[in-house]
């Protein structure tokens, strides 16, 4: 079968996937962004304006997944649209099924890999470098590069990948590989946290005053306790304690 969707179109889909969440809303979530990203493929596949508008409107329906891995779903959907346009298999229900299955499966893998592992890992690496190196921009650059390079690489290459492999891309082998990456990042993240804590206790080998070390240990202890609860959020704990401490010191001014 011929492949009318060329690399230029797949690249345009990847580029537009950067706006996947621009119109994120509670009703359709990424639906509008999904249609926007897929528009270059539909423009090529459906020269008839009316038919193209019907397809585009159809694609504005609900869709949601992890935004980086959404490119894979976009590629697979472009492939299915191509089959629809050339009279092969695939219909509206088939497209809805593909979006539902890929959306939830990619979200399950992507949320764990990108939100819960790579993002905290990049943050810890960035903070550690910002605390320890004399070059102030190094931490920020490391944080950005550790996350953005794999994120953008997958965003652009994922479209072609999903287009070639289709829904079968989520085979056991890929999941096993991703699980391995997550385990490695979590272990290295633990090690980086150990170094960060050691540096916070004794920056450049100079132990900080005992009051500071106690404060650090207190924060660590309270953090471990509150981390066992989903609510309230860490921010509310940290903010409440900060406001209380500042208020207490300022109110004691006269005494």
């Amino acid at each position, binding site marked *: 079968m011929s492949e009318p969707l060329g690399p230029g179109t797949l690249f345009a889909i990847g580029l537009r996937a*950067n*706006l996947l*969440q*621009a*119109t*994120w*809303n509670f*009703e359709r979530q990424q*639906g*509008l*962004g999904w*249609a*926007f990203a897929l528009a270059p493929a539909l423009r090529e596949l459906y020269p008839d304006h009316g038919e193209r*508008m*019907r397809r*585009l409107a159809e694609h*504005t329906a609900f869709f949601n997944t992890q935004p980086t891995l959404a490119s894979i779903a976009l590629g697979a959907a472009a492939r299915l649209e191509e089959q629809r346009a050339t009279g092969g298999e695939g219909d509206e229900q088939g497209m809805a099924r593909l979006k539902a299955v890929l959306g939830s499966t990619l979200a399950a893998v992507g949320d764990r890999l990108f939100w819960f592992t790579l993002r*905290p890992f990049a*943050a*810890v690496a*960035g*903070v550690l470098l*910002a605390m320890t190196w004399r070059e*102030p921009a190094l*931490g*920020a650059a490391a*944080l*950005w590069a550790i*996350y*953005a390079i794999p*994120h953008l690489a997958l965003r652009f290459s994922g479209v072609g990948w999903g287009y070639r492999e289709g829904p079968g891309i989520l085979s056991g082998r890929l999941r096993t590989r991703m699980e391995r990456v997550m385990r490695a990042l*979590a272990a290295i993240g*633990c*090690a980086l946290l*150990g*170094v960060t*804590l*050691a*540096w916070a206790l*004794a920056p450049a080998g100079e*132990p*900080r005053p005992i009051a*500071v070390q106690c*404060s*650090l240990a*207190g*924060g*660590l202890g309270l*953090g*471990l306790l*509150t*981390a066992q609860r989903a609510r309230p959020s*860490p*921010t509310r704990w*940290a*903010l409440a*304690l*900060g406001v209380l*401490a500042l208020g207490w010191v*300022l109110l004691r001014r006269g005494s």
Partner: protein
Amino acid sequence: MNGALFGTLLAGGLAALDATPVAQTLVSQPLVTATVLGLLWGDWPTALAVGIVLQILAASTLPIGARTPEDYSVGGVAGAGVALLLASVAPFEHVRQAASLIGVLVGMTAASLYVPVLRWQRRLNEGLARWCEASLRRGFERSLTQAQWAAVALAFALGVAVCGAWLALAQAAVPLVERESLRIAGVWNLLQPFWLGFGIAQLLNAFVQRRLERAGVFAATLVAAWLVLVAGTP
């Protein structure tokens, strides 16, 4: 200073874009935005002091389930911006520390208060999506692009406006920093390590996930790093 203020507002808008609507490359994370603002204001130490604390708290704030988490993109810019503005009052270490404390508190407050703004923005996007679908069905193809760019413009404007509001409010804190900077600096010297420890614990919990070997890696690295730092040799 006007250039730095303008740059801070611009950073607020760009951070609001990167957080969700455009690209999501983490350029909106507090450490990155604080570093940029440090360059703009010519004060790296204050910017990094605020950026590090907000970053460690931002990293431990995870988007679990349907919850809209605190938004540290605009919060990070507001916090670092306010700290830099207050630190520019006088060139003393205790003023810098007092400004850092207020900056971190503003950052966390701004991140929390931005949640209802985000929800409102997303409700507006619902209307935009319905309009877009109806327009497409009427054959108006450009409505898709127009809806996308309208949402991007709204997100950018909200980021700029919220950062501007926090910077304007920060002017009210200038007398407090001038008068009480020594006391506030004392609080910073204890709260900063507390917040760091608190954030590290949250992240550790996220990485360990009740696996003993990972907790072991953390403990072993902590001891080894401590020995290397303090004794100079492992």
